[in-house]
Structures are given as C-alpha cells and as structure tokens.
C-alpha cells in the first residue's frame, strides 16, 4: 500500500471506502482481518448447527457464550 499523507487526522478519517479490485483494497482487507485476529480474537464458537426463530434470538444466544475480548496480551 502506498504511503498516504494527510493534513489532519480528521482528513484521514474521511477515507472510508476503497476501490474493490485494487491492490490497496486487498491490502486493507487482509490488514483488517489480520489485525482483528491479533487484537480481538473471539472465543471458539460451539461447533454445529443452531436454529433460531429470529436474528435477535440468535444475537442473544451469541451473548451467552461470547466474551467481548481476549484477556490482555500482558496478562498472558
């Protein structure tokens, strides 16, 4: 990804959309997923098939087994 320079952080923050198919897009995708894996991994989900009457019910169930974040890197 080429270096991009901004006059302020707010100017940089306005860049939210990448053009799919470009090298920059591919890099951003893999960077985001890679960083998420390091900084915010999720608990291994209970494997299998689970059925719900609504998406809200599914989201509530997720809360029952998920923890929001991994214990801090320092504490491991």
């Amino acid at each position, binding site marked *: 990804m080429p270096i991009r320079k901004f006059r302020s952080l707010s100017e940089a923050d306005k860049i939210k959309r990448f053009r799919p198919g470009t090298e920059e897009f591919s890099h951003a995708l893999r960077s985001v997923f890679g960083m998420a894996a390091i900084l915010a991994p999720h608990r*291994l989900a209970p494997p299998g098939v689970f059925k719900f*009457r609504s998406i809200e019910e599914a989201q509530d169930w997720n809360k029952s087994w998920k923890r929001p974040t991994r214990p801090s890197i320092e504490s491991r």
Partner: protein
Amino acid sequence: MPPPAPIAASRHKHVEWQPDGPDSQWCAMDFEKVLVLFRALGDQSVDYILVGAIGMTVHGIVRATQDVDLFVRPQENNIARLRAALRSLFPEDASIGDITAADLAGEYPAIRYNSPDGSLQIDLLARLGQAFAYEDLRFEEKLYEGVPVRVATAQTLYEMKKNTVRLRDRADAETLKEEFGLEE
C-alpha cells in the same frame, strides 16, 4: 425474561468445545476460508445473497467482523446445493445435514453454522421479521478478490441496517449513506 434456548440441532465433537475453555480456544475468522466459501457457493450454483459486514467490504467499506451473513432461498433443491457447498469445505462435519429448507422456510428462519475448526461462522437467513425475505433483496454480482459473489446492493444493505437496534449496524448504515449518497 431470558431469551428462549436455541435448538442445538447437533454438536459433533470435532473439537472439544468447553463453555469456559482455556486460552487456546481463541480464534478468528479465516479470510481466505471466506473466499473458498464463496467459490464453493458459486460452484454449486447456490441462490444466496451476501449481506452484513462482509457485504459492505465487497462494496469497498472494510471493517472487521466475526461472521458471514447469507440470505438463502429456502427451497429444498437450493438448500441441498448449500449443504453440498459446505460439505466441500468441511467433509467430515455431519451436522451440515441438519440445515434444512423446512426449518428455514418455517419456524427457524435464522440458522447459525459454526465450522468444526472455528474458521467460519455463518448466519443463514431466510427472512428478517416481516421486513425482508430473500425475494425482497436486490443484489448484484461482483468480483471479490477475484471470486464472483452475489452481494446485496449498497441501498439494500442500508435499508436493512438503518432501523436496527444495534449501534454497530446504525453506524454501518450512516457510512453506507454517506459513501454512496443514498436516499432515506
């Protein structure tokens, strides 16, 4: 009142999942596996529409997520093709057979499939309340890292997210509206 307990159609023990597992039971969605999933869905000609955060990334708005959200046409032959696609990724997982058109078209329009290795969590949807069903969604076919995907249009993603309760979805809706100049 606590939410009703989900129906665990099956829990085949490819991994020894524990409710309060050790630190080693942390994982993340495998992005390359997501691409393999889309290839398999295409190979099996599954009628699906990608929505949710991965749908947004196909449109160029990149943010992390933990699952893949797919609307699927809840017809028996289509769900059979869906099962075949999933089996091509996870051939040992017998639980895939529990994904049925009867459930999706009937009492259980939301089915969560968690792969045995933790690399994929997939929400399969046939409808969202009374507001959205498969037939209601507009989609387009786009290339995603060279793989064809059927993704909901930016306008459709916006309409799905704008009135939801979750703050994250409302933030997504705002971003879509801003980036694509969408109307209410």
